[in-house]
């Protein structure tokens, strides 16, 4: 799944954000947008040198200042699981539907599937 979709799926999860200047922000993701702008709550900010700390109830971080984000490793599996469940639900719903005019070509991926799919490539 796309990097920004992973970020969207990480809402309410704890994460570490490191900015380009080396400061780090540990907190729970409230929201994010397509520019990677994010809002966090219950934030622990650390200076680049690692010597000063602040606690912030909430903060807004502009996407362009971000170097990287570290998220819980369980997140990727959780999202894959959810995607599979959604696909199964969609498939069974469509299966029960009589496919007449809605018929697609052999092996065509369902609409809305992202182009980059890890582990599954539709040729």
């Amino acid at each position: 799944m796309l990097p920004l979709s992973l970020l969207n799926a990480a809402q309410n999860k704890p994460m570490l954000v490191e900015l380009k200047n080396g400061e780090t922000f540990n907190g729970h993701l409230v929201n994010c947008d397509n520019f990677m702008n994010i809002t966090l709550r219950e934030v622990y900010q650390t200076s680049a040198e690692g010597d000063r700390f602040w606690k912030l109830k909430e903060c807004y971080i502009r996407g362009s200042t971000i170097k990287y984000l570290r998220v819980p490793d369980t997140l990727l599996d959780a999202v894959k699981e959810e995607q599979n469940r959604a696909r199964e639900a969609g498939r069974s719903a469509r299966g029960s539907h009589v496919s007449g005019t809605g018929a697609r070509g052999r092996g065509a991926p369902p609409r809305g599937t992202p182009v980059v799919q890890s582990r599954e490539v539709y040729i």
Partner: protein
Amino acid sequence: MDSLIPFTTSGSLVDCVDRKMLVVLRDGRKLQGVLRSYDQFANLVLEDTVERIYHQDVFAEAWRGLFLIRGENVVLLGEIDLDQEDEVPLRQVEWTVLEPYHKQDVANKKKREDVKSQVLYEQKGFCKEGGEGDGY
């Protein structure tokens, strides 16, 4: 020999997905992990990431987990040859042991780069802007 064959599509990372990759960031960090996805900005999702630091003939590793890296901070991305990756001619030690040496190397490098850019500015008229925060 597969690693010698160039990508068939220019500028595409699809051949790198689900492979173990080395990522060098602009701050000089070297991360190794499995590339799970990317987008048009080359933002990367790297799973089971390990950060490695080096000093002379010694290295140390620290496990970092799941990364979402903003594309503009990436210097390079290289595929790791799984057959050769264990043939490292370096000795491995604990991170806490090596970290001060690595930090010293980084500080020395920054000093050398500052002197270099100052000389280039004074003697050759090069502008000093554009490399802020770069440590690679």
